[in-house]
Structures are given as structure tokens and as C-alpha cells.
């Protein structure tokens, strides 16, 4: 019995023993009333928790401060995206798939579109590929900034969060200018892009490239040398290369274990083999190494964006084949963004074929020859793979997404068991899972 009048406090008997609702200031009641006198506590963290990186539930067996067992429960954000794509056309799949890993949506889109293009046997035009690399690297920086910012917040360095999100706002402004939306852009489409870079966006990107290195240096000055930060991160969430490969972990975690496995170098796509960039690694296998790797990757992405801007040549951004290319063009009119009047004039007055193509592509969609492909790309969290199966019709038969967060999160138990409960937070923050990708 507690002495508070809180209706939710107290304890009750369940089939698994006595369950205490701890409301604060009542440890003596909770532990004192424990008849078995064990040190073992089962603590439930989440799914509603500010530090579990989304709707993630952790059930931790504790012996004092030490975690003896860590169980991860997911599925709170499952929205059936994979099944939904089977009821939509191929182009509509982009809008679904972009909402999985919501911090790096352009990667979701790019992976899906690369898979569809592989099934179709087409390649997007050169300008589309360059712009895809450009926006993907911008998104990689944004995603790493969220990872670093929330990492800071969860460790208690709250200014790290405000700083990281301030830089991310600059990138979101750029992406809003280019794609029309801050998140979940549906910009990368099978065959190319939804629309070309608008006027002035290149200058804004250059402006951003001028400002950003200073901000990254500021972030380093804020956290990297800070002794508390180092003490919290070093030796937290240890997982070496063997453990990583056995658990299927890829991305910054694998690179922080020393293996320079980056799909942009190993299995290049979208012309990455022609760009000049490094793959940063660390050899500490812990949260500290992952922090350093992510900071270094931000700098590499800045280099990639610079190079992508250099090689922008005028050209089409959608494939030539009129049976596949998304027909409509959007433009900004007096009342907002809508169908470009040029395009409407063309299909209504000038070309019957264009009208028919527009109608058939928007209602039915294009047909993709039967078969299956697996296309992996390097998302900020690791290997993002798309297993897409087509039955020859206008709708996907099956789209399975191998999401890196889903696979990486399995490593939580290996990283946390035997350590302290505070290091569980550090370990999960260093995995940087995005629950949208985990649950789909």
C-alpha cells in the first residue's frame, strides 16, 4: 500500500507475480515490499519514451544497474506498406515506400525506383541520376544530423539537439525548394524525377555548402572533445566485425567496427563510381566510433554534393519512352502548384497520343515485365534492399524492403546485455533506428 492518493500508484497481483507501478519517491515501498528479496527487476521502457528513438519497446531484466536480458518489441508503427503497394500502380508505390524510413525518404524512393527500372530494363537519363545523387546526399546529411542531434539529446547534451536540427532546417528548406515538400517527397519516380531543379536552387545549394562546414566544425567543438560525452560513448554498445556480419548489421555500425563496407563503393549505382569520396571507418566498435563515422560521413557527403553540382548538364530528367515516363509536368501558378498549362495545352490541343499516354499512365500505369530483382543501396543506416516481384501487370506483385534499421535493431541485445542500463540508451542511439523502417 502506498501513502499517496494517486489512483494509478500501488501494486496489483497478476499471473506473473506482483506488479508495481512506480510513481516516484516510493522505492522503499516497492523494494521493501518485495517478498522474494531478489535483486532482479524487469523494467519496461517504451513504447512511449523520449529516448527509445520512436515507438520502440524494450523489456529489460535488471540486476541492480546491469542489464541481464534485453528484449526488443517492435511493430507499433506497422502500417502495411508492403501489402499496400500490391494494390497500387508502380508509380504510386513511390509515395508509399517513401514513408518507411521517414528521415531518409529519398533513399527509400531511390531504391524502389532503381528496382523498378531494373525490372523494366531502362536507365534514367544522366541529369536525373546526378540530381538523384545530389538530393540523396543532402538527405544523408539531414539524416545523420538527426542521428547526431537525438544522440546528443538522449545522452543529455540538449544543445546538440538544437544545433543539429538547426542545420537540418537548412537542408529541409533546400529539399522543399527542389521537391515541394520537406519530407516524404515522392520526388524520385521510376524513369527519372518528378520535375527538374527549379531556378535558383543551385545557388541556394552552393550557399548551403559554404555555411555547412563551419557548422560541422561547431558541432565537433560542442561534443567531440567533451569528456562527459567521451565517457558516455566509449565502450558503450560494443559489437565487433564478426558480430556485425553474423547479425547482418551494415552501415555506420559495421564501418565503426573497422570494415569499410559501403555499397556506394562496392556495388556502385547512379554513377557513384565516378565520384571522388572516402569511406570513413573507425576501429573502436562502440558508440564512440559510430559517432565519429557519422560526423565524417557528413563531410564526405558535402564533397559529393559539390561534385554533383559540378557535373549538372542540361538535359531531360525523365526517360524518353512515352509509355513509361510520367506525363504531367507541374508548375507554380497564381494559385499554387498545379498542372503546367503548357502540358495541358499540349495534350488537349496538340497531340492525341500525348492525351492517351497521359490517360493510360495515370489510370492504369505502365506494365513491368514479369520477374524479380533485389536492388540494395547504401542508406544512412546501412543496406537498404528492395526485393520487387512483378507478374507482368500494372501493379507490383510483391515489394519487400530489407530495411537496415530492422536488421540493425536485432543487435540491441548483443550490445546491451551485460552493460549498464544507461548504456542501453547509448547503444540504441548509436544504432540510430527509424521505427518507420523497422515496422513498415
Amino acid at each position, binding site marked *: 500500500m502506498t501513502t499517496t492518493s494517486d489512483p494509478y500508484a500501488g501494486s496489483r497481483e497478476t499471473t506473473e507475480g506482483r506488479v508495481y507501478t512506480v510513481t516516484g519517491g516510493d522505492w522503499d515501498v516497492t523494494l521493501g515490499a518485495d517478498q522474494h528479496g531478489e535483486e532482479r527487476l524487469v523494467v519496461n521502457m517504451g513504447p512511449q519514451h523520449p529516448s527509445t528513438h520512436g515507438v520502440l519497446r524494450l523489456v529489460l531484466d535488471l540486476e541492480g544497474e546491469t542489464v541481464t536480458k534485453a528484449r526488443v518489441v*517492435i*511493430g507499433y508503427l*506497422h502500417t*502495411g506498406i*508492403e*501489402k*499496400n503497394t500490391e*494494390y*497500387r500502380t508502380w508509380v504510386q508505390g513511390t509515395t508509399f515506400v517513401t514513408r518507411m524510413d521517414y528521415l531518409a525518404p529519398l533513399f527509400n524512393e531511390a531504391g524502389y525506383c532503381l528496382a523498378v527500372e*531494373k*525490372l523494366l*530494363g531502362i536507365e534514367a537519363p544522366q541529369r536525373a541520376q546526378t540530381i538523384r545523387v545530389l538530393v540523396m546526399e543532402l538527405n544523408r546529411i539531414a539524416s545523420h544530423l538527426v542521428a547526431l542531434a537525438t544522440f546528443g539529446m538522449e545522452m543529455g547534451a540538449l544543445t546538440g539537439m538544437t544545433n543539429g536540427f538547426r542545420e537540418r532546417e537548412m537542408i529541409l528548406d533546400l529539399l522543399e525548394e527542389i521537391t515541394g515538400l520537406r519530407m516524404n517527397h515522392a520526388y524520385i519516380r521510376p524513369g527519372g524525377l518528378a520535375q527538374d531543379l527549379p531556378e535558383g536552387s543551385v545557388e541556394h545549394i552552393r550557399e548551403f555548402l559554404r555555411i555547412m562546414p563551419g557548422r560541422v566544425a561547431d558541432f565537433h567543438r560542442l561534443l567531440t572533445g567533451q569528456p562527459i560525452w567521451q565517457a558516455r560513448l566509449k565502450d558503450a554498445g560494443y559489437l565487433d566485425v564478426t558480430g556485425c*556480419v*553474423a*547479425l*547482418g*548489421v*551494415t552501415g555506420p555500425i559495421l564501418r565503426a567496427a573497422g*570494415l569499410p*563496407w559501403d555499397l556506394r563503393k*562496392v*556495388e556502385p549505382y547512379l554513377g557513384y563510381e565516378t565520384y571522388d569520396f572516402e569511406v570513413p571507418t573507425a576501429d573502436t566498435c562502440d558508440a564512440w566510433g559510430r559517432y565519429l563515422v557519422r560526423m565524417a560521413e557528413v563531410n564526405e557527403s558535402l564533397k559529393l554534393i559539390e561534385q554533383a553540382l559540378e557535373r549538372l548538364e542540361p538535359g531531360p530528367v525523365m526517360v524518353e519512352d512515352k509509355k513509361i515516363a510520367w506525363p504531367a509536368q507541374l508548375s507554380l501558378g497564381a494559385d499554387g502548384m498545379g498542372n503546367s498549362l503548357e502540358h495541358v495545352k499540349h495534350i488537349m490541343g496538340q497531340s492525341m497520343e500525348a492525351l492517351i499516354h497521359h490517360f493510360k499512365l495515370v*489510370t*492504369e500505369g505502365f506494365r513491368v515485365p*514479369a*520477374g*524479380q*530483382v*533485389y536492388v*540494395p543501396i547504401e542508406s544512412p543506416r546501412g*543496406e537498404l*534492399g528492395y*526485393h520487387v*516481384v*512483378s*507478374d*507482368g*501487370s*500494372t*501493379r507490383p*506483385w*510483391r515489394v*519487400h524492403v*530489407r530495411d537496415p534499421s*530492422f*536488421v540493425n*535493431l*536485432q543487435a540491441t541485445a548483443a550490445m546491451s546485455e551485460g552493460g549498464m542500463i544507461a548504456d542501453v540508451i547509448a547503444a540504441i542511439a548509436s544504432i540510430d533506428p527509424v521505427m518507420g523502417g523497422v*515496422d*513498415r
Partner: protein
Amino acid sequence: MTGPGDRERDDAELGAQAPSHGFRKGAFGVTGSGDTSGFGGLVRVEPGGAVALHSTDRPYGGYFDEVTDALIEAVGQATYDAAVQRVLVDRGEITYFVGREHLLALVQALRDDEALRFELCSSVSGVDYLDSGGPAVTPGRPRLHVVYHLTSMTYRRRIRLEVAITAEDPHVPSVTGFYPTADWHERETFDMFGIVFDGHPALTRILMPDDWDGHPQRKDYPLGGVPVEYHDATIPPPDTRRSYR
């Protein structure tokens, strides 16, 4: 989709013993919607279906021949012939269609053999091929497929293994003994398709609530959804809308 009355008329008109799978009736995928265009009577043969039943002959090209030869050397020609039902090389990827009895032997060789070294299991997922396969579909055929994507980091290669099972006996040995990463993948495949992985340490639902009935990503499980009401109209859920197929 098509109602039962339409299906009988289909078979009678075509005089076919073939089931209605394999033939697509109507242009808009929905009957009884007041479709007066005349396209409701259109009958089209479905394209070959998602399960491409053909196989590729040797040589496969690229590194596929090396991998196949190394695999034959590792497990022996007899096991290989018993295990691998057919091989398909399509769009630059190789797929081995494997029987479930021999799956673990192949997986061990693929992971451990020096010439193969497929250390990373990228993905284990399921596909439900119900009603697909064109007019050659027979009932009771293995409609559930488990697809394994293996990556060799040493040699930078990728292969795919595919195991087909029926829904009546959906058991496949678990590869978690060789690839611990398959743990959650297999749980998800069980959750979504009902494929039971024998030997898995803790095969429970992972995305759906623990006491859910049914396996949502099977093709005979509805998408779900409620009609959305607007001021003047109601939009039905996606699986019951008129669709232009």
C-alpha cells in the same frame, strides 16, 4: 474482382478446363459497377505469371558459373542435383530454386566454403504466388515461397535461394543456426505469411499483435480499410475500388 456467376460463364464460353486464373476478364477489374463501356466482356490471357517456370541453361555468365561450380564441388553433384530444382538467371541475378530438405546443407556450404564465402544474409522474406503462374496453375501447388538473399563480402557477389512450400504444410528449416540475422526476418515471414521455420529459437509474431489471427500478406487476406466518407461521395477501400488493370 469477378463474381461467381461470371466465372462460370467464363469457363462455359471458353470451354476450358483451365481455371479462371490465367485469364483476366474485363478491363476494369470490377463487375456490377454500371460499366457501360463494353470493356467488361474483354478476356485477356494473363502474362506468364510471376513464377517464371523456365530455367536457364549453362553457361550462366559472369560469376554465376564460378559460384555454381564451387557449390557443386562443396556439396557434391548428387546433393546439388537433388537439392536444386532449377536455376534462373534473369536481369543480372541468379536464383536457385531449392527443396526444403536440402536447404541447410546448401546454406552451410555457401557460408563456410572458401570459394563461396557468403557471409552476409541480406534478407529472408516470403512471397505468396497464389493465382499466379498463368493457365498452368494447379491447386495444391506450392504457393508460398521463401526467398533468401545471400551476399559474399569477400567476393562481392549476390545470389538468391528460393524455397517453395504449400500452405497446407508450410514448414521450412530455419537458417538462424548459420545466419543469426535471420532471426527477425524469419519472424516477420512467419507473421506475414504463416511459414513456420523449424528450429527457430523464438518464432513469434513481430509486427502484428501477438494474438492476431491470420497472416496478413497472404494474397487471400484482405487489405482492410474502411470507406472514407466525403460530403457528396464515399471512396471505398483500395481493394474494392474500381481499378484499371
